[in-house]
């Protein structure tokens, strides 16, 4: 799995954690993951940041340049749901908002895995990669509790 790191206006917290996951300390090359410098070579995009208006065209271009199957690993609370900038005027609002724009552009993303965390731990990123590869079943499920009023 070759990964390309795409920053779309992130605060660099998640980028440092991505870098951390690539160091010998966590060593994602154990799973055959390698960082590449171009989206044309990549299978997976490590996506960070809430997508500012300035970066949106570049993000779309980078994702269009990827060969199929395209996969996206949305890292950090900004990429997953917009984070604290979810209702900001200059921000698209995370990957779910980008997905609609990509559909309009005709770009198909084959698989997405969301990794929450602010910033996401290197271990959480590795766990996200394992979920993407289908090695482990995702732990988190939609939970609905009913409060009993006595």
């Amino acid at each position: 799995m070759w990964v390309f790191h795409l920053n779309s206006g992130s605060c660099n917290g998640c980028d440092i954690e991505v870098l951390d996951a690539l160091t010998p300390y966590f060593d994602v090359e154990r799973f055959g993951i390698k960082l590449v410098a171009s989206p044309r070579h990549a299978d997976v995009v490590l996506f960070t940041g809430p997508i500012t208006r300035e970066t949106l065209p570049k993000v779309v271009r980078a994702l269009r340049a990827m060969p199929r199957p395209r996969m996206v690993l949305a890292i950090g609370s900004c990429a997953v749901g917009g984070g604290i900038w979810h209702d900001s005027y200059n921000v698209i609002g995370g990957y779910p908002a980008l997905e609609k724009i990509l559909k309009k552009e005709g770009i198909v993303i084959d698989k997405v895995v969301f990794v929450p965390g602010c910033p996401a731990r290197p271990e959480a990123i590795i766990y996200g990669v394992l979920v993407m590869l289908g090695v482990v079943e995702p732990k988190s499920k939609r939970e609905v509790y009913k409060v009993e009023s006595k």
Partner: protein
Amino acid sequence: MVKLKFVKLITVARKAGTVTRRYPFEGPLLTEEFRGEVRLDPEKCIGCGACTIICPPNALTLHDEGEVRVIRYFVGRCIFCGMCAEVCPTQAITITKEFELAAPTTEQLLRDLVHERVKCRICGKPFLPAKLLKAANSDVPGSENYIDICPECRIKIGLKSILEHKLG
């Protein structure tokens, strides 16, 4: 000369040893202060919505939908600041060390807490959760008389009684 360099490298590497964490096969490095996903206790929660007001990224949101009040926690937007746990009046929110939250859909990152709202005795409109009413009025004497009346109806009753008193 080249051979000598290689030997030097071995000695350096031996000194450092293996540093790689075998993460999925061994436990993560978690400190005591680490904050992960917050957990809402459905038994303690009264549905006041203090956490939804303090939450910086609006990960905790409050929805009044018909007969229920939903406190929705979207982990994907949470920044794990722990302010909700600080502000909760009943200590219903606890900070866990859970960080393995990756999921293929955002739907899986939602946690809902559904409170049933009490219906007004007079107009029949649902207004507040029963637990919140009980907690807010627990030390107010005489509150049993108006506890199941919505604020709007209460204003109407108050105005009516004032007018009756003034006009005789």
